[in-house]
């Protein structure tokens, strides 16, 4: 996964997420935190952060590739679905993260 801040000056893209053989199929940015959700063609789902190698596993590989991904408008939930017919909703309570969300 690639993160790029196109500040219309010289900025190089960063890489984050997991390095595996699977292609990223879906990427979504959290509406209020510096967190990016990614789904992969092997079904893996992760949350990761710019300038960090740490990540949280949402789901393990299986049930087909990730074909649907989206944060709720307030950022307190994530929806994820796969080609293999699994749909899922994940709660993201504030207690899960150390830092406070950006104010709206």
């Amino acid at each position, binding site marked *: 996964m*690639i993160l790029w801040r196109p500040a219309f000056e010289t900025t190089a893209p960063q890489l984050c997420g997991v390095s595996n053989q699977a292609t990223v199929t879906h990427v979504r940015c959290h509406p209020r935190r510096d967190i990016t959700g990614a789904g992969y063609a092997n079904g893996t*789902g992760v949350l990761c952060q710019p300038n960090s190698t740490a990540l949280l596993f949402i789901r393990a590989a299986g049930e087909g590739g990730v074909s649907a*991904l989206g944060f709720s408008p307030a950022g307190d939930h994530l929806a994820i679905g796969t080609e293999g017919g699994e749909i899922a909703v994940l709660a993201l309570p504030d207690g899960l993260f150390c830092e406070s969300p950006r104010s709206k």
Partner: protein
Amino acid sequence: MNAMPLPLARPLLDVLGARWRVGVPAVAAAWDGRSGFAGFALGDGSLALAPAAWDNGPTLRPRDGGGVELVPGAAAPPVARVPVHHGACLSVAADPDGGFLTSGADGQVARVKSDGEIRVIAQIDGPVATIATGPGAWRACAIGRTVHRLGMSASSIDVETTVTSLALDPSGARLAIADEGGVTLWAGGNGQRLLAGLGAPSGLAWSADGAWLGCAAGDALHAWQLPNPAPVTVAVGPVGSLTTAGSVLAAG
């Protein structure tokens, strides 16, 4: 990630989420912020309505000595499945008036409320793979090389080749349209063709302030600081999905 220390031997979905087997592919997902339901467009033409929260679901609570601990909860209730389309449901978005807007292989664009009520708002000749919704009561869909704006301000625009992606700017003033040959900005009337010949664009995303538009095309990311029609470009390799948060473009 600055996550609180949790015993995360299992994927997060298994401790703080709910999973449902629906037996058919999930095609797309969107959220209705008002009702708290996620809508999943499914390959059998239905829309699955998944609740974000339910009675006695799992939670986190502060732990003595710092950090948090998991409080396991009751299992999630079954999801409701609303049969909307004949053939596959091809896309879903949050409707500007609440609930969801879906499109299908049957050429229909329908509004589905979170209580399951369905209202067909357009019938088009051919599968409708792409829709976009947002501020200003925008409901747009693409079929072939034509983009239709539905509703009170009904209008349409033809672009050069088959439309692959739509993205409405955060203010609802301009719709970015990607087709197989380039990107067009449409604010009603004639569109403004941004640089063509990028290779086939695979995704579009606006910055949160609407100041710039990002596009993945070929093996590169492009960003336009509008109204400057010349993009800045970085080569990154193949990109399948694109999104933004604030001033960061994320691609995978």
